């Protein structure tokens, strides 16, 4: 006589299902669109000549046709870019309307933020980014990334000093605005031109 076949125990089915579910949840990556957000400047007016900028207010970052880098007129490497930009844009004393000789000037008009302790003078410093038509997009993004990182680090520093947390952790809109005003994203992209070089 055949042995009686017991009914399969379905009690653990739920556990298996959950296990599978968790496995898939962990392993699937949803492609979230991420990227570096930038704002383009409006087109320049036709009748205006070159705007005069004082030399100490500008840090020139050039990327050549073969992806080599010039920072402030000197050939340099991308690993130094972040530090150079950070030092250039650093605003040591935001409550002072003047800055040391080797640093960019301060803006003429202060902005007033009570949460940062009254009037602050943001730096006038601008990063002038210029690239050749032959520069690779990868290199361009690496440069943009380093610039963004430098600004983010400065904002973190300021935010840490006044609010005791990183800029990205701030939730109060006023605080976010204050920091953004104090350290603006000062990246200017030159009108396209052949800069050549190799």
């Amino acid at each position, binding site marked *: 006589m055949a042995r009686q076949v017991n009914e399969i125990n379905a009690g653990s089915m739920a556990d298996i299902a959950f296990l599978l579910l968790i496995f*898939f949840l962990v392993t699937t990556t949803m492609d979230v*669109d991420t*990227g570096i957000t930038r704002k383009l400047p409006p087109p320049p007016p036709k009748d205006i000549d070159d705007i005069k900028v004082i030399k100490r207010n500008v840090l020139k970052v050039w990327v050549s046709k073969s992806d080599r880098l010039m920072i402030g007129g000197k050939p340099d490497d991308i690993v130094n870019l972040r530090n150079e930009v950070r030092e250039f844009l650093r605003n040591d004393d935001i409550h002072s309307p003047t800055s040391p000789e080797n640093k960019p000037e301060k803006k003429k008009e202060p902005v007033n933020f009570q949460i940062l302790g009254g009037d602050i003078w943001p730096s006038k410093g601008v990063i002038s980014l210029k690239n050749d038509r032959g520069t*690779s997009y990868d290199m361009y*993004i690496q440069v943009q990334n380093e610039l963004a990182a430098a600004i983010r680090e400065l904002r973190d520093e300021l935010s840490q000093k006044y609010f005791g947390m990183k800029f990205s952790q701030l939730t109060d809109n006023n605080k976010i605005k204050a920091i953004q005003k104090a350290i603006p994203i000062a990246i200017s992209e030159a009108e396209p031109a052949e800069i050549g070089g190799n």
Partner: protein
Amino acid sequence: MAKFKKKGGKATPGISTSSLPDIIFMLLFFFMVTTTMRDSTLLVQIKPPQATEVQKLEKKSLVSFIFIGPPLKKQFGTESRIQLNDSFATVEDIPEFIESEREARDEADRKLLTTSLKVDKETKMGVVTDVKQQLREIGAFKINYSTAKKIARK
């Protein structure tokens, strides 16, 4: 003895199907979560560059995409080309494309429209610069360079 016949001795009992709904639900959820609606098929190859300082692209409905990369089919050449919607395009087509993207949105949302540039990392900046110039001229100032996230180096 014959009185006490074993009931259904040989018949195999049916497999319990009480957990079947669970499994089906699980599959359903899985597919719901992982499927991403792709509204245009890519004609160009996009390997985005990596960066550490990336932000998430908010409000997907307010984003229009411009793809730039080498064509997938080799008969279209190996140079990077621009793809708008479902077809290849030239730089001159961009104003029209942005205009139609604006038309499709609410009046109030038009200012918030972001243009996401999905560009292959081998692309030369020349074509990207041309695209950016076009976007500037038509007043689509908000752009996003699409990049993959890289773990920050210490």
